[in-house]
């Protein structure tokens, strides 16, 4: 099946990519998380975000920056580093060119999450293009702001199913004067014990990770201060303060392990060693955050899901090689709210939601789910009908039935523009190319 690829370069062309096309849409970033969670569905239109790049506004003294959502984070880091600042975020795939919005949409995070949180804690505003081409802003350009709903949070972890982030405003932090890493080779249970005594002291590690046989503790601050604290950490753990090169190498190895993982896990820190210990596979564990990744063989992915679910945690597959394994362990408790929001923001179900498997499908079609509410009775049919709905020409007949249940027939259906770029109405014209979509 042929899909139209559109590569918008600004907000206007991003809106047109939706408003002037019909059919199903998949949002595609740099492709660094291509096989995470569920597999993507076929789509009539692919919106490639990698043209939405560059800094829109940056006043270093305000320590906030507004960027095109498709900007690779490592590029942005280079720019703000010139002003002694950084985005305090270091997920493994950043070095492979992941985009700002791709990182947000997958709710990714790295070792710095212990000190600074994830993207959800750093995004202070966004402009989102909804499935019908409506641009909607949320948040703003200041770090403290409680006006209106924080819809950037809705985008965090949305895997492209709720709208396209076109622009994102981020909070910046000063780049630390010095970073130090203390390393100790030990088993996971030993690392967990060390973690407990480390956290009881006020050493304020920004990262605390067990990377398959080595505990890595990172601190940041002044040169003298970090030297003194590193000494204390060495005393406490019996580990070794790494040179800058050694530290860089250890964190590279950490990132490679995360990249190679097949499952990502989150559970109470104290339960993590017990859960991971059941699998004899390479693992990386954030012993203070409770976030871990495992490289189990495909056949074991479901076992990991089961073990984590039993421990009350969450898990998601991170590799396509999982065979028949489930994409997610636990399912969200507020499924029907997720569905209701999807219905409100994307009544025609244009945006691909396959990453979530059956979650967002109306209950009637998702037989795996316990029969609950009858989601096929749309709560605001009049509103849905007044927007431009599109046929779900994805070719996936099961989906079509599912979508059909919530998509009121619309007299004004547009023909699906497959190979044409949207006609211009003022902005930069999105590039239209063709792609063979499986």
């Amino acid at each position, binding site marked *: 099946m042929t899909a139209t690829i559109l590569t918008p370069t600004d907000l206007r062309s991003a809106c047109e990519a939706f408003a002037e096309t019909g059919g199903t849409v998949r949002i595609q970033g740099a492709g660094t998380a291509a096989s995470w969670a569920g597999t993507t569905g076929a789509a009539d239109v692919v919106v490639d975000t990698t043209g939405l790049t560059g800094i829109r*506004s940056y006043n270093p003294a305000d320590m906030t920056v507004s960027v095109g959502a498709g900007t690779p984070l490592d590029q942005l880091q280079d720019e703000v580093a010139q002003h002694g600042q950084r985005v305090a975020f270091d997920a493994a795939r950043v070095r492979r060119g992941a985009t700002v919005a791709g990182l947000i949409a997958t709710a990714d995070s790295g070792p710095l999450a212990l000190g600074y949180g994830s993207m959800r804690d750093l995004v202070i505003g966004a402009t989102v293009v909804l499935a019908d081409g409506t641009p909607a802003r949320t948040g703003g350009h200041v770090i403290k702001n409680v006006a209106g709903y924080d819809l950037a949070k809705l985008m965090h972890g949305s895997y492209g199913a709720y709208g396209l982030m076109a622009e994102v405003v981020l909070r910046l932090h000063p780049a630390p004067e010095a970073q130090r890493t203390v390393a100790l080779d030990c088993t996971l249970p030993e690392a967990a014990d060390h973690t407990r005594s480390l956290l009881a002291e006020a050493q304020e590690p920004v990262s605390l990770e067990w990377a398959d046989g080595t505990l890595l503790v990172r601190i940041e601050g002044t040169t003298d201060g970090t030297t003194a604290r590193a000494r204390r950490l060495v005393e406490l753990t019996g580990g070794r303060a790494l040179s800058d090169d050694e530290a860089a190498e250890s964190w590279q190895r950490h990132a490679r392990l995360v990249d190679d993982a097949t499952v990502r896990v989150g559970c109470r820190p104290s339960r993590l060693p017990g859960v991971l210990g059941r699998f004899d596979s390479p693992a990386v564990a954030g012993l203070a955050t409770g976030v871990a990744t495992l490289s189990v063989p495909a056949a074991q992915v479901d076992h990991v899901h089961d073990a984590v679910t039993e421990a009350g945690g969450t898990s*998601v597959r991170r590799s396509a090689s999982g065979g028949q394994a489930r994409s997610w362990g636990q399912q969200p408790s507020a499924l029907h709210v997720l569905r209701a929001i999807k219905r409100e*923001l994307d009544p025609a179900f244009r945006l691909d939601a396959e990453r979530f498997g059956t979650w967002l499908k109306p209950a009637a079609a998702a037989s795996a789910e316990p029969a609950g509410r009858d989601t096929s009775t749309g709560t605001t049919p009049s509103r849905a009908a007044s927007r431009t709905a599109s046929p779900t020409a994805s070719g996936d007949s099961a989906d079509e039935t599912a979508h059909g249940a919530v998509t009121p027939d619309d007299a004004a259906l547009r023909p699906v523009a497959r190979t044409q770029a949207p006609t211009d109405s003022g902005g930069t014209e999105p590039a239209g190319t063709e792609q063979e979509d499986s």
Partner: protein
Amino acid sequence: MLDRAAHDALVAAVGTENVISDPVQLRSYECDGLTGFRQIPSLVVLPRATEHVANAVRACHRHGVPFVARGAGTGLSGGAMPVADGVVISLQRMREIVDIDPVDRRAVLQPGVTNLDITKAAAAHGLYYAPDPSSQQVCTIGGNIAENSGGAHCLKYGFTTNHVLSMTVVLPDGEIVTLGGDTDEQLGPDLRGVVIGSEGTLGIACDITVRLLRTPETVRTLLADFPSVTAAGDVVSDLVAAGIIPAAVEMMDNLAIQAAEKAVGAGYTLSTPAALVVELDGPESECEAQFAEVRAICDRHGCTRLHIAETAAERARIWKGRKAAFAAVGRISPDYIVQDGVVPRTRLAEVLNRIENMGRDAGLRVANVFHAGDGNLHPLVLFDEDAGELERAEELSTDIAELCVELGGSLSGEHGIGTDKACSMPRMFGEADLSTMDRVRTAFDPQHLCNPGKLLPTPRLCGEQPGRYRPHPLEEAGVIERL
């Protein structure tokens, strides 16, 4: 009035002993901290358990009765003001600290637990709960969640949303769901983050799990006087430029200082045009080095007096002056309005000058107390209602909030939109932005029963045309576009 069936259903939901229907008692629920907006509710229910809350909400849902959640009622935007013919669901009887877990560093709380009680309970383990609104002795964690409350220390440590791991929420139809989880890992979009800061319009937060932090090793606090608010503002900019993120940077102008001194005698200089409270915390070695830098920056900007707290008591005294400032303004003016707005911190000096001019034009005094580190202003508009100044004061106060938006900031940094500023929302957000928020609200609450009329402008509240549309300054500068 509630019809009989609805009344009976609500009583059945929580039990007779947990219902208030006496007109005199109902009156004490007529407003929150924004006392200008009042509405006596038809009924107040005081559930004792999450299941009670769900029962009550289900009863409201079934009978089409609007309801408003209420914590301590300290909100400053009319968020907890009852709605006509509606019910107030007060969380005041759900005040149990369910668990403090020192190993996984988290606390499980019922919604009516006060902010300060969390830290009190955690202190035995060397832990604390970071967000610290000035109202922390009375305000509840449920209210904090609804308003995404911050405090003096949120510059470094973040707001409520950065510290809540999970919560059960009673949705507007009475279903109980869990949002968030044991870690920051997510199952799909972050609905926890959507509900936090939604001002009680998307559901009622019940069993709440928050993160606890290790108490910092050192805390260093100083109080510095400056010859002008501009000089004090420049200090803030230089701190940022030097890569220092203090735990707190608070500014007070002369009027605010006079009021605070009259009230609590915290040792502020009565004649100084401006003062800064700067606090650093962290590992001792780092803290000391940065503290020296802060002092140098203060000196560079003509600091006229620098007082360093040497003991915990002295530190508490400095904070007492700052925290008493709002209420203290009552000593220098019969009436006042607390405003809350945010500007990019580089525009602090500019906004203060403009506020001063606007005050002069209106013939009213404005005292300024604010969280300078994150550009969050709290201008206090002083007036005398008996002298017929109320309307003018309200107008000035609204103009100040809208000025913040004009300067690229926000209508609110922590007090919320509520009833107070719903009609100003079109100054900050376009029609499509607001309708998108409304769609999300509808997804949660199709019947519009959950704290209706708050947060988003409605024709009833604001007239058919809710405010004039003004382009956002970044829009004018070509940085953003609304289309």
